């Protein structure tokens, strides 16, 4: 246990892909400055710490803990509670911890459907005994247990009190470095889980350099089937770009390389439901004078739920499928 006066930071991955852990490395040479000011005391992705090491820390031992990923099973919930107790500051890091992220799209399916797809029905699966994972297994040495799978993907803030949220899939390196500098300088804003840091309150459109020509959408296009005209607003061209309903901070990186915004920074400012906000925006941009024409255009939108709530289903009003 280090007692050298340096800051102690931790990072954990729950229901996430590992991209957030990589994104912390994206700060590049700044890592050296970070390591000069802070010791890593827990980071399963990068260093060999055990849960029991963390449990042995006194409460509040970790100065700042970045928690990425949502909470999908009992292990993640347990670690979230443990890290909350052991951390002075707990930050939800990345879209999954803040808003559920891509894993929360599983809230559109029941546990049975997910298990059937993962263990029984996928074409690549060979499971003639139709075996499903059991949470306990009796051995001579005692019962073995694996974490329990919860029926819903939760945000970190659904499980424990969160001090800050850093949205993004993953959080963009410059913003992360700004946040880390604030940590090192002791210049963090007042704690408030509702306030997101390392981003702005405005929309991605605000940072996007593409030209808005105030033209209405005449047809919807998909990014893998059409090449956008350079420099012109993707949404006006008919590509479903979530930028209008998405918080900025990323520097509009995706639109700058012809990819529509996927919405990973979540809803803007005070908006609670990103998908509903985007439906509101999209509805005012269609080139339709009649109801039939509006419906014809709307029917071209592929997978509305998955598109509008791609990263924020766990934060949305309805939070999942009925």
């Amino acid at each position: 246990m280090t007692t050298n006066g340096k800051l102690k930071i931790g990072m954990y991955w729950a229901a996430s892909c590992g991209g957030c852990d990589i994104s912390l490395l994206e700060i590049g040479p700044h890592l050296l400055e970070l390591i000069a000011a802070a010791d890593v005391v827990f980071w399963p992705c990068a260093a060999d710490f055990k849960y029991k090491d963390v449990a042995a820390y006194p409460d509040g031992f970790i100065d700042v803990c970045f928690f990425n990923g949502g909470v999908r099973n009992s292990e993640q919930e347990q670690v979230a509670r443990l890290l909350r107790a052991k951390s002075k500051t707990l930050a939800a890091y990345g879209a999954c911890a803040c808003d559920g992220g891509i894993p929360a799209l599983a809230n559109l399916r029941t546990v049975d459907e997910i298990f059937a797809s993962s263990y029984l029905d996928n074409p690549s699966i060979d499971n003639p005994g139709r075996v499903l994972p059991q949470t306990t297994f009796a051995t001579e040495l005692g019962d073995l247990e694996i974490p329990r799978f919860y029926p819903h993907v939760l945000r970190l803030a659904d499980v424990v009190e969160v001090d800050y949220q850093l949205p993004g899939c993953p959080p963009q390196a410059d913003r992360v470095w700004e946040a880390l500098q604030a940590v090192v300088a002791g210049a963090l804003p007042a704690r408030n889980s509702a306030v997101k840091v390392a981003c702005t309150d405005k929309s991605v459109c605000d940072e996007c350099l593409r030209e808005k020509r105030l033209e209405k959408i005449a047809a919807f296009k998909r990014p893998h089937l059409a090449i956008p005209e350079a420099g012109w607003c993707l949404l006006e061209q008919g590509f479903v770009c979530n930028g209008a309903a998405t918080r900025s901070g990323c520097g509009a990186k995706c639109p700058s390389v012809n990819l529509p915004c996927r919405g990973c920074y979540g809803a803007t400012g005070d908006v609670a439901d990103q998908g509903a906000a985007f439906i509101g925006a999209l509805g005012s941009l269609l080139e339709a004078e009649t109801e039939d024409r509006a419906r014809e255009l709307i029917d071209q939108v592929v997978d509305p739920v998955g598109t509008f709530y791609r990263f924020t289903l766990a934060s949305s009003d309805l939070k999942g499928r009925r």
Partner: protein
Amino acid sequence: MAQATHVQPDAAATAAPWQPRIVAFLCYWCSYTGADNAGTARLKYPPNVDIVRVMCSGRIDPALVTEAFARGADGVMVCGCHIGDCHYISGNHKTMARMPLLRRTLAGLGLEDGRFVHEWVSAAEGEKFAKLVRQVVEQVRALGPLDWPGRLRERGVGHGMDLERWREHA
């Protein structure tokens, strides 16, 4: 995981049968006046509708609809001026595009079609409004309680929730 129940605990414990609760967002210039028209003409329609008057159906943010469902509405109605009649010229053109898109989204979230109704009602169409309410109340009654807050509670969503049940039954 506990099976979803369609009976609200309070309703089950008391004798009062469940009644559908429907939130209706009506535009000031046409549909609210149409509802008023139904009232002054003493047309009967069931009292299950909570009317929210807004200045224009173009002001009805889809989030108002999702929030109504999330807070326990069994059905939501959105009514505005007929296309061409909007007091603000094009407000309802936005509604005309938003609501079908919202309907597809709600369908993707597992809401039955009959729970979300979008219809044009002019200031003169009191009879149409009364008939619409009767029809919506009946179709929502047939669908049964939605109880979205109960479903969220059951899944342990919300701060300070108790995950104990999941740990035992998952």
